[in-house]
């Protein structure tokens, strides 16, 4: 990217033009709401802690900064690598009395303790003025709304359970159509195996094992069972035959990974698809970034499957900004402006196109987004298909304990009955 710095060639001109084009709607929106832009006094200064440090991610966060600046704000970027680290920094600074204007968390219960300690400002004013209730998915609303108050501004929605496949590998293995259910999936995996390819590209790290499990639970178990297990933590549901079948199917998938799988990073697994060495991978929509880097396009070199069947759930994971408590009026003004800017439709599209996510709202112009994102947005319009990721319903502690049990099951020969018992125990703790 820095190559073009000195000699602005045609490509960078196009990039600038695209950026300006992306900002135009934002500017139009600014004019429509002069109250926000035409405030007197110093420019609202917002320091934002986030962990978007990878190439595509930092390009995405830049669109947020640009949109905020377009509204007359001053954006101070505090990027901390690794989510865990960034959240620890944010919490330490909040407790230490030197909070940032905004801090990134996942759309999850990660910040619930911070809310309960009374350390966050609420966004009730912005939420009411911008009508958040009307366009935000119920799942997201339930996370950011605590006891009737809004404590976080959603930034994006990721779907962690996409099934990606390599068209080259499918062709080599003689698979004509993409699988539409688990029987067809296993048939395809067998064909890939017979063709001498890695059937399932998988990185053997516990969070990736967790993604495969959740994909099986949502697609095979269905919405009811999914909610009973992950939201209600219902021991009866975990003991049921249907859930046992989910666990056995999850374990069956393990027999299709290669020997180099344990410890592999997710992008190395995606690389196996890009080079046509492997057939399929369960991974979130951030995998699109890897394909794009290799100049591959959806529908051309690779395919994306959101789920099996017309009613498959669309599982929501994502990022939000929270706004630490402060009584300084200018800081509060900056917080409210920021919350309003990042949830605006134009910002949402510009951000998601670079991040690989989809916007938090469906009332946007998605024509410039890629085929997978458009598919995702179309599914999101059907409210009955929206579900939350595990961390939306479970505390980080419960989620972690569950993940320990699942990764153990994936890697060891454990009787499925013991796994059911262990899961009940893991989800009982709080």
């Amino acid at each position, binding site marked *: 990217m820095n190559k073009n710095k000195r000699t602005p060639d045609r490509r960078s001109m196009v990039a600038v033009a695209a950026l300006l084009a992306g900002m135009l709607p934002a500017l139009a929106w600014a004019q429509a709401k002069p109250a926000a832009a035409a405030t007197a006094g110093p420019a609202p200064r917002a320091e934002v802690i986030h962990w978007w440090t990878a190439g595509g991610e930092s390009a995405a966060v830049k669109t947020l900064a640009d949109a905020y600046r377009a509204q007359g704000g001053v954006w101070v970027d505090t990027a901390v690598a690794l989510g865990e680290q960034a959240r620890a920094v944010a919490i330490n600074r909040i407790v230490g009395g030197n909070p940032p204007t905004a801090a990134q968390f996942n759309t999850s219960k990660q910040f619930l*303790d911070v809310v309960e300690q009374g350390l966050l400002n609420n966004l009730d004013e912005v939420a009411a003025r911008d009508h958040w209730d009307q366009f935000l998915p119920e799942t997201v609303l339930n996370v950011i709304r605590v006891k009737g108050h809004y404590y976080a501004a959603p930034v994006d929605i990721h779907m962690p359970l996409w099934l990606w496949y390599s068209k080259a590998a499918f062709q080599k293995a003689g698979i004509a159509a993409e699988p539409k259910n688990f029987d067809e999936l296993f048939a395809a995996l067998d064909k890939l195996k017979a063709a001498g390819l890695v059937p399932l590209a998988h990185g053997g790290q516990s969070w990736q094992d967790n993604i495969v499990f959740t994909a099986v639970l949502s697609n095979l178990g269905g919405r009811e069972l999914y909610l009973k297990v992950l939201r209600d933590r219902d021991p009866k549901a975990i003991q049921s035959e249907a859930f046992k079948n989910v666990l056995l199917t999850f374990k069956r998938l393990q027999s299709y990974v290669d020997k*180099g799988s344990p410890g592999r990073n997710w992008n190395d697994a995606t690389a196996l698809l890009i080079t046509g060495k492997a057939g399929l991978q369960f991974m979130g929509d951030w995998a699109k970034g890897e394909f794009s880097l290799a100049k591959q396009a959806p529908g051309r070199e690779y395919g994306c499957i959101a789920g099996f069947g017309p009613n498959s759930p669309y599982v929501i994971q994502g990022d939000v900004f929270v706004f630490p408590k402060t009584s300084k009026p200018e800081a509060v003004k900056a917080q409210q402006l920021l919350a309003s800017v990042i949830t605006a439709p134009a910002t949402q599209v510009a951000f998601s196109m670079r991040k690989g996510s989809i916007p938090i709202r469906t009332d946007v112009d998605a024509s410039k987004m890629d085929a997978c994102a458009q598919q995702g947005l179309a599914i999101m319009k059907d409210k009955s298909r929206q579900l939350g990721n595990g961390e939306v319903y479970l505390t980080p502690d419960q989620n972690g304990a569950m993940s320990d049990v699942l990764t153990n099951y994936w890697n060891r020969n454990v009787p499925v009955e013991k796994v059911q018992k262990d899961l009940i125990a893991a989800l009982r703790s709080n």
Partner: protein
Amino acid sequence: MASSASSSSKFAARLRRLTRRITPWSALLPMAITVLLGYLGAALWSLRISFTSSRTFPADDFVGLMQYERLFENERWLLSLQNLCIYGLLFILASMLIGFLLAVFIDQKVKGEGLLRTAFLYPYAMSFVATGLVWQWVLNPESGLQHSMRQLGWAGFTFDWIIDQDRVIYTVVIASVWQASGLVMALLLAGLRGIDEDIWKASRIDGVPAWRVYLSVVLPMLAPTLATVFVLLATGVVKVFDAVVSMTQGGPGTASDVPAKFIMDHLFGRANIALASAGAMVLLLTVLILVAPFLYARSRSHAAGQGGH
């Protein structure tokens, strides 16, 4: 100036004595404060937290031994303790043995001693975050050692411990020994160089074989150095974290988990500082139990030594 100095020379001398006495104490003060507040204070704070139901933030309730009960019902924690025992035993034994042999080898006045010493010590100079990654690549059966050996013609060559549930902890031992033996060598070599040449001359006259001199004379003389090496390695065992994280991330599954990783996971990722503190206290207690007899013996022998004066 001169007259005032002569008149108050007595006072100046007293002042000098006083400052001389205060200087060492004031120099020690920052360290003392660090130890008292940073270490002791933080340890007591952790102990207090481990009896609460704290999650992201410290709570001030009291739940008794609940966190400890949960800890010892947790299979992952028990496995990590077991791994720590295996790792600790093998790592300390192998590092001391290999380090000692390397030191003896270099002590034979070999050619290119400087080069060899640097080569052996080099692994210790590099961060495990980097070298652990290299070990991960080398040990990966699909791309590392096994793969290249098979390409060279040994079709049956198998070395896939890093993906083996029951053997993965040994690969961490191998990599750690590779890193630490150089340090052991350097310390023991310094000890060996401190041994009087006359002892070697005397043993040669008596016709004692060299291995016998090393075993019966030199090793006992190296006891203080060996003790230092042991303490250094033992602290390395308790805090082992980077090796596991960079090589296996505790996997496959949870097979190569260690207490430090368990504690870090619960402290940050899982927002459960009470359980993490309980784990840390168990770890501290283990260290104290192991180190206390050792320190007691040392203080006894120290006292005995002073009594002789």
